[in-house]
């Protein structure tokens, strides 16, 4: 399959490259990254380009790699009137996402207490397989969480007004409807609110060094306002609850495909018309899972604040732990764009991709409306994460989307063969990163060598202009699921 460069950082696969393609596919990558892009990504994104109602072009971000159905790093916008919704375009972990918390602390202040702090966080934040949550819920209360997300957290003392104002959609998707959720999903999720989970999920403590602040004017507006500042990121999703919602609806959609006479090139791309009972049911169920995930990150953030208070014996006012922003990177959203001079509404699927709104978008909180949306990108645990800002160009080129992470280059099993968990833990210790992990093999699977170079993928989106660098944080502590 051939792609050709249509402008710097943009590679297009024309519709004549595969039968059934309705629109071109675009891969966003530097010259270096395009050469290492997996062949499977070309196959998968051109399958997506064949789906009913897709608008303009199917997209892959620079961190793209093979996924189930859609590639990870995949973005596709479908017409809300005659397009589809596809659980495979969202992923099993609905609203997997990242929150960034800033603090008043500096590296010098945290250093003597780092081990104590990481050990404490590892103790108080459940991680790994199973793991009872931080909040005890019954069925009724879980439904309240599904409906309210972070609003529920606010009403129940787990969030502040400032948190609520600093989350994509306020952490509260209003179209959530718990009647679209199976008992199985409830049973699977009822014990898990406030758990980190496993795989690539983490709680990272990082430092932002002065020379890693790329936009000195913007950084203070995002709360990055002192040298060697300590910042935290929380990366997790909707846990067993969301996984079950996705599983349930893949089955529903397999049947719906027959009912509506839809054909796709891969079972994992099962879809239904957005404007159909099945499509709407899933959209409402997805919102329940997304609210659950927003609440999950919020409850963990709440526990982080308590742990810091205990370890440093300082008040919340002194510690200044506040939410910079919280983004979803596995989700579908109704959004409006101007295409060929006409305003259209589309359902943007982002699977391993982050919303990257430029200034003036109504959905942004007032304090960010003038500057653009904070974009948080999680790297591998050895290389750190980035804070970026969304752009108007993303609104025009990528349906307001950008990358979400580094992007895997090595399978988990390959990574595990390359390095042992204990060795890696020691290597990281030598490099100044203290890590605690629920699983040593799990730790090895997340080694930095298993990922693309984070600086390369970030530079690619910065050069392209779909989001711009603000600051980079270097890891010093990590809790791994």
């Amino acid at each position: 399959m051939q792609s050709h460069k249509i402008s710097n950082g943009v590679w297009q696969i024309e519709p004549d490259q595969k039968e059934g393609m309705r629109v071109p596919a675009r891969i966003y990558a530097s010259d270096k990254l395009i050469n290492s892009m997996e062949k499977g990504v070309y196959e998968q994104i051109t399958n997506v380009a064949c789906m009913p109602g897709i608008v303009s072009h199917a997209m892959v971000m620079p961190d793209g790699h093979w996924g189930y159905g859609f590639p990870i790093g995949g973005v596709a916008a479908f017409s809300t009137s005659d397009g589809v919704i596809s659980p495979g375009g969202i992923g099993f972990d609905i609203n997997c996402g990242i929150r960034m918390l800033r603090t008043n602390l500096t590296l010098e202040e945290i250093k003597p207490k780092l081990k104590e702090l990481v050990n404490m966080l590892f103790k108080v934040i459940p991680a790994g397989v199973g793991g009872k949550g931080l909040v005890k819920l019954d069925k009724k209360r879980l439904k309240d969480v599904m409906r309210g997300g972070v609003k529920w957290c606010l009403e129940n003392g787990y969030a502040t007004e400032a948190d609520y104002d600093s989350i994509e959609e306020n952490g509260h998707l209003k179209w959530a409807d718990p009647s679209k959720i199976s008992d199985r999903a409830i049973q699977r999720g009822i014990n898990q609110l406030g758990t980190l989970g496993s795989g690539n999920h983490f709680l990272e403590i990082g430092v932002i060094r002065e020379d890693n602040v790329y936009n000195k004017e913007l950084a203070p507006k995002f709360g990055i306002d002192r040298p060697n500042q300590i910042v935290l990121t929380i990366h997790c999703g909707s846990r067993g609850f969301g996984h079950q919602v996705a599983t349930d609806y893949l089955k529903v959609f397999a049947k719906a495909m027959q009912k509506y006479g839809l054909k796709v090139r891969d079972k994992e791309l099962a879809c239904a018309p957005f404007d159909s009972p099945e499509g709407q049911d899933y959209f409402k169920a997805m919102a329940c899972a997304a609210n659950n995930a927003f609440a999950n990150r919020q409850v963990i953030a709440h526990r982080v604040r308590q742990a810091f208070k205990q370890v440093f014996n300082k008040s919340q006012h002194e510690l200044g732990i506040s939410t910079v922003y919280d983004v979803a990177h596995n989700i579908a959203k109704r959004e409006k764009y101007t295409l060929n001079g006409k305003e259209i509404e589309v359902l943007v699927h982002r699977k391993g991709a982050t919303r990257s709104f430029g200034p003036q978008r109504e959905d942004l909180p007032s304090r960010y409306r003038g500057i653009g949306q904070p974009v948080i990108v999680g790297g591998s645990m050895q290389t750190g994460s980035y804070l970026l800002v969304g752009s108007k160009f993303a609104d025009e080129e990528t349906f307001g989307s950008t990358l979400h992470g580094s992007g895997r280059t090595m399978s988990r099993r390959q990574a595990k063969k390359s390095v042992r968990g204990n060795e890696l833990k020691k290597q990281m210790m030598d490099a100044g990163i203290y890590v605690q992990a629920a699983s040593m093999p799990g730790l090895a699977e997340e080694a930095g060598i298993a990922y693309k170079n984070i600086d390369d993928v970030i530079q690619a989106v910065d050069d392209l202009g779909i989001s711009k660098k603000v600051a980079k944080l270097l890891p010093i502590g990590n809790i791994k699921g």
Partner: protein
Amino acid sequence: MKKFEYDDTVAGGDCAYRAYGKTLEELFANAGLAAMQCMVELDTVDVRQDREIELSADSKIDLLYEWLEEIVFLKDAEELFFKEFKIEFDDENKRLKAKARGEKINLEKHRINVDVKAVTMYRFKLEKTENGWEAFIVLDL
């Protein structure tokens, strides 16, 4: 006969494996064990309780999917790890009764690998071979 083997060559395959069995019963049990082994080192799990499982589906392959999905479900819903499965089918192989034996998840005792999110449909396959049955399964981690 090997019970199962993991396949590292599947693109992006989080946990891809082939499971084998002389009989369909054996294949289902081995496919279940391989899924468990993705999550936990089986030799750290003891048999302390039994859990009866009854499932039905329209076909053998659908039943295999339901079976694996049930194991993933019980890991979260009842916090159970299993290390032995005894399986019986009805005459048409569309219903199964299983006795799953294991214990409650204990993070201090069990050597945890990685959580399984879901059973995927990617290349999902069940077929009769010369020696019995073979399945190909990819789990999302």
